[in-house]
């Protein structure tokens, strides 16, 4: 069932020119992710996992191959169309949170809606309920500097969820957090997954990847293993 396939890539390749060398970061990746999957992408540095994440996140376009996101062929879209896809279909969560330092939590969460052209009143309401969903109802008017690392990441997650994206794409989301806070954030991901959210997690940490139900491991630009686990840790 095509409609259930949130992500489908076919022979995805990506080459960079680095000086006089051509780096083949991806050498033909076929990956299908279905709705409400919880996938961890792993691999050592240089394996191509960041490149794959950039392609999945529509931040970059492949050298060859096709990429369908939510039934739409996005590998051949223009810059502005990709911006729209990132806005509507993808919720990014970064290792370094990437919040606006001088804006309140509420305003940070509103930001994608501004680019989507949503009126101010609706923006505020939706941002407020997204913050409630990540447990920060009491912190809406705080600036990032007034929040803990875990709270900042929650703000970023609320921002990622605001447009009800097809996928939540998290790049080392716990890389800057201590282990206790990491567990809290992973527990939040678990809740979101239980609510039906498709999650893709890029990480190099095994114990973080262990939260996912499926682990895709890359090596030298190819999928080395793709393991679906029944008894995932929740």
């Amino acid at each position: 069932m095509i409609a259930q396939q949130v992500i489908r890539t076919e022979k995805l390749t990506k080459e960079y020119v680095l000086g006089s060398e051509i780096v083949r970061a991806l050498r033909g990746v076929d990956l299908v992710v279905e709705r409400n999957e919880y996938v961890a992408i792993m691999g050592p540095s240089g394996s191509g996992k960041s490149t794959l994440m950039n392609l999945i996140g529509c931040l970059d376009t492949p050298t060859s191959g096709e990429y369908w996101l939510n039934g739409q062929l996005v590998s051949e879209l223009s810059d502005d169309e990709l911006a729209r896809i990132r806005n509507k279909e993808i919720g990014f969560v970064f290792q370094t949170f990437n919040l606006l330092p001088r804006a309140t939590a509420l305003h940070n969460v509103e930001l994608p809606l501004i680019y989507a052209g949503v009126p101010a009143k609706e923006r505020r309401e939706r941002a407020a309920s997204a913050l409630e969903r990540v447990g920060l109802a009491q912190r809406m008017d705080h600036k990032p500097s007034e929040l803990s690392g875990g709270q900042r990441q929650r703000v970023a997650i609320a921002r990622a969820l605001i447009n009800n994206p097809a996928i939540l794409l998290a790049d080392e989301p716990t890389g800057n957090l201590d282990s206790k806070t990491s567990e809290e954030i992973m527990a939040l991901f678990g809740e979101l997954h239980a609510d039906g959210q498709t999650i893709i997690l890029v990480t190099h940490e095994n114990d973080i990847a262990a939260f996912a139900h499926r682990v895709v491991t890359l090596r030298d630009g190819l999928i080395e293993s793709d393991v679906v686990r029944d008894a995932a840790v929740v």
Partner: protein
Amino acid sequence: MLLGEGIRLALQQIRAQKLKSFFAVIGVVIGVMFLMTVVTVIEGMNRYMKEDFARTIYGLNTITLSRWPEVQINTSAEQWREWIRRPRLTFEDADAIREQLDVPALVAVESGGGGRVAAEDGTEIENVWLTTASADYFRIRELKIARGRAFTAPEDRIGAPVVILGHEAAQKLFGDRDPLGRMVKIAGHRFRVIGVLEKQGTLFGMSLDNRAIAPSRSMLARVTAPHGVVDDILIRVDDPDQMQQALMEVEAIMRVRHRLRPDQPNDFALDTADDSMAFWTRISRILYLAFPTLVGIALVVGGMVIMNIMLVSVMERTREIGMRKAIGARRRDIIFQVLIESATLSGFGALIGIGIGIGLAQLVAAVSPLPASISPVWIAVSVALGAGVGIVAGLYPASRAARLDPVVALRYE
């Protein structure tokens, strides 16, 4: 919506970095300040020239006939020598004009000088503007008598020893006492005060009220002009539409009286309020041409500073721009944001400049005789200029920001 967001962001940035922002916009501040000061003074002068100066010097619908133009710029020595050789104007010239002019008009003679006036009790005032004139002078110059009366045509003909004092002169000489009927002494001659003028105010800081006016053939004429001679002949036309006609007639009458051949130029000058305005218009046009150049230089420098600040600001926020792109900002959104920010910054500078400029102009108006007039049009122009400089200065940084590759920008340290 994005506009509001952009301005909000820019103001946040300005608030967060007050000093840096101030230095960023100082060029714009100086440029706009300069523009506002100069424009305010020029506009003030303009209004002043229209409302007061032209009227005071020349009067409405009035032709001033004199030996040389009243207002001169850059007169060469040669020109001066020619002027000095010109025949003087006489009472007979005035009489001839009065008789021969077809256009209905009032004609008066006027001569002026400066000197002292003393009251009987020995109170003496200096630098009094002394005028000898014929009776119609008061109607031509629209001088209103506050108390007493003006002198009459018969009094003028016989050269009666009467005088009308300016408001300030009367005040200084007599204080609270009634000046009417009292005697004053001017250049050794005694005059009876028969009237006091209404208060006139000042012109370029000079009082128009420290004056005394006596009949044109009175003994005061010995101070103001050589015997039989007058400085100016004033012709006030009843109907403004007949000014040109009157000018032509007066010119013709005088050419005949001076026996000028057709190929000879006029050896007298005819001035009207319009001429003085034309003269002023020329000066203000020069000012309006010269100052934009200076203002332009200041704004270009200001724009370059802003461009630099914006480039640094874009660099510093590379990751933020990457994040914005990742969550759905298109190129044009990024360009728009940077442009709005730099326009807000520079518009903010323009506002400061306008404030300081108006303040400076008021200061100039307070300490010098130059007037000041705030023009809403120029305030709008200044704000637009400021914002425009910001937009132009922001173009390059904005396109740099928009071209950032989100993948690279997000990893930027």
